[in-house]
């Protein structure tokens, strides 16, 4: 493959002599007479990688041809030797600045030309081998990144009092982040860490630490994060032999007492956002892997209603905005948490967008893990609606409230639409548009589900008596024969049944309960580096 040479010269005699010299030395020569033909010859499956290029040519001269080759996607895989009778040093330098690798002056000496061609062949061979090694290395990195991403918690726990969201953003290099979130018997335990270094080594270290953490998770279940860190450190020393280390933060959220117990091995401390924002009180601890039998301090703090805890890996404090201000000290950052809550996926997307923006769109220097815990008490509200004029305000309030508990915006929208259909049914069919009567909405939401019981003051009805709008006989009569008698009500009920997990009518039929169960949150995994 590397014995193929493209000879570009408009002078047939020179072309023939150069070709003869090269052919005599076991090179395969493709001779062409101008730059346009030369570029065409490079668009084949295995093009010549060494190009001998004359400068003075009609159609497209050697300089332009050289520049065009250097704009190709595989530009570095060509070795270009410019061949010219121009002997002036400036001409030689100019030729090299146009992208040539070497310059031979005509009339050439065949031995010199061959020596330079062989140098080119050696360099191209090395470059192609290096590119292949790089490709293999990138494949390995991808595989390691895949293994690492899937090692971490993908499905996040569902709990009525705690909403969890998470994201993982890879950096330009493979990093050493790992984390875990789990719920058991009303307790949510989690840990987040970062192994030193980058590349496959750091990723594999994170896999190792994660498996050691899993081995000692009983300490977390037993509400002993300090013992957990000690046990992990003692074990990991056997593998790392004091040569590596990692940060690790472990916490247990007790939802019965709404308290957080935690210990820390030099990871960034999480931030609590409530009536005011504050970093968790520091606890004594050093990096995992520094020594055997390490002791860690443990603290327990209360979690206020409706506060939020933001946990993150080491990369976040290092991100500086255009004003060289750390993300964490930026007023805009705490501002993000003072706004009314949106759906979990929107919240985490907003955080990611903010971080990307602050990092001015550049790739992250280190991989980044974000965990967001919202401690929200269930909410119960009641509304009374007498006509459609008051409906929008009620639906707005329901939607806004559901957003603070739900996972995805689509679910919030579905719940709003279902509420609207059922309230309108109550006003129109139940109360027969009598504004002296009311439709009552009893609304409940927590982090698992939202429900509304909608009751009108009417006489009720038998929902089973309403023909189904997807009855094929009726649909055919309506669509094909335009038989208006086949038109049926009940499309609102039909649609509500499609989008809600539960639609339950009372015995009398004047009250309906609709329920939507929120999808469990999943970790947002960015595939490409940001």
């Amino acid at each position: 493959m590397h014995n193929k040479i493209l000879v570009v010269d408009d002078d047939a005699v020179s072309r023939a002599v150069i070709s003869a010299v090269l052919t005599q030395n076991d090179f395969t020569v493709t001779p062409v007479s101008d730059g346009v033909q030369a570029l065409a010859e490079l668009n084949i499956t295995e093009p010549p990688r060494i190009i001998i290029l004359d400068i003075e040519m009609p159609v497209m001269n050697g300089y332009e041809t050289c520049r065009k080759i250097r704009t190709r996607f595989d530009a570095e895989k060509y070795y270009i030797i410019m061949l010219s009778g121009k002997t002036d040093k400036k001409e030689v330098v100019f030729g090299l600045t146009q992208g040539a690798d070497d310059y031979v002056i005509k009339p050439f000496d065949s031995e010199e030309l061959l020596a330079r061609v062989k140098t080119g062949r050696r360099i191209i061979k090395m470059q192609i081998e290096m590119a292949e090694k790089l490709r293999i290395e990138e494949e390995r990195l991808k595989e390691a990144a895949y293994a690492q991403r899937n090692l971490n918690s993908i499905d996040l726990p569902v709990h009525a009092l705690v909403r969890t969201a998470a994201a993982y953003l890879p950096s330009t290099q493979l990093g050493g982040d790992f984390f875990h979130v789990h719920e058991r018997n009303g307790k949510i335990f989690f840990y987040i860490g970062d192994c030193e270094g980058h590349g496959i080594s750091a990723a594999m270290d994170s896999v190792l630490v994660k498996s050691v953490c899993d081995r000692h998770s009983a300490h977390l279940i037993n509400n002993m994060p300090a013992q957990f860190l000690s046990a992990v450190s003692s074990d990991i020393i056997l593998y790392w032999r004091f040569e590596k280390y990692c940060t690790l933060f472990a916490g247990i959220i007790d939802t019965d007492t709404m308290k957080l117990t935690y210990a820390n091995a030099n990871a960034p401390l999480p931030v609590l956002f409530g009536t005011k924002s504050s970093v968790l009180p520091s606890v004594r601890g050093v990096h995992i892997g520094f020594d055997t039998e390490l002791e860690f301090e443990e603290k327990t703090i209360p979690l206020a209603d409706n506060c939020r805890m933001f946990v993150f890996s080491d990369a976040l404090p290092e991100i500086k905005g255009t004003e060289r201000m750390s993300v964490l000290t930026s007023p805009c950052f705490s501002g993000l948490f003072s706004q009314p809550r949106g759906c979990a996926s929107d919240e985490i997307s907003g955080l990611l967008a903010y971080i990307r923006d602050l990092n001015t769109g550049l790739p992250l220097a280190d991989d980044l893990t974000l965990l967001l815990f919202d401690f929200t008490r269930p909410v119960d509200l009641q509304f009374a609606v007498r006509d459609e004029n008051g409906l929008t305000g009620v639906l707005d309030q329901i939607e806004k409230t559901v957003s603070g508990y739900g996972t995805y915006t689509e679910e919030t929208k579905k719940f709003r639409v279902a509420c609207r259909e059922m309230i309108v049914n109550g006003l129109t069919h139940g109360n027969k548009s009598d504004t002296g009567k009311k439709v009552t909405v009893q609304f409940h939401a927590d982090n698992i589900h939202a429900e509304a019981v909608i009751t009108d003051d009417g006489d009720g009805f038998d929902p089973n008596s309403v023909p189904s709008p997807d009855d094929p006989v009726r649909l055919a009569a309506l669509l094909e024969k335009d038989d208006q008698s086949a038109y049926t009500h009940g499309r609102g009920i039909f649609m509500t049944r499609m989008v809600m997990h539960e639609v339950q009518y009372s015995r009398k039929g004047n009250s309906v309960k609709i329920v939507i169960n929120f999808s469990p949150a999943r970790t947002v995994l960015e595939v490409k580096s940001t």
Partner: protein
Amino acid sequence: MKPSEAKEAKIFDRAYLETQVSGNTGIVRELLVIAASEIPQQIAALTHACAHNPAEIKNAAHKLKGASYNMGFNILGNLAREIELMTLSTDLSVYTDYLTRIRNEWTEILKIINSEKKV
């Protein structure tokens, strides 16, 4: 010899061309056939430039010089080189003598090429 210098005055430096192609006389003959076809066109292009298109004189001379030196036609190459190095003149008659010498030189080369064919 430096490339910028004129070459040793030989009508045809056969040894040089043979060395270039590792002594393959068959290839030398093939190259002479190509030269016999191409060089007259280059001389014609130079003649035309000297008569009608002065802007092309240097290019045409440069091309003839390159082809000639590559073949070992040193005297022909030297003549073309002299034209290439000359300051461009609006008096086109200054080229007449060179063109005559170039044509005569080519006639001598052609004799050698033809004798090669007979071998």
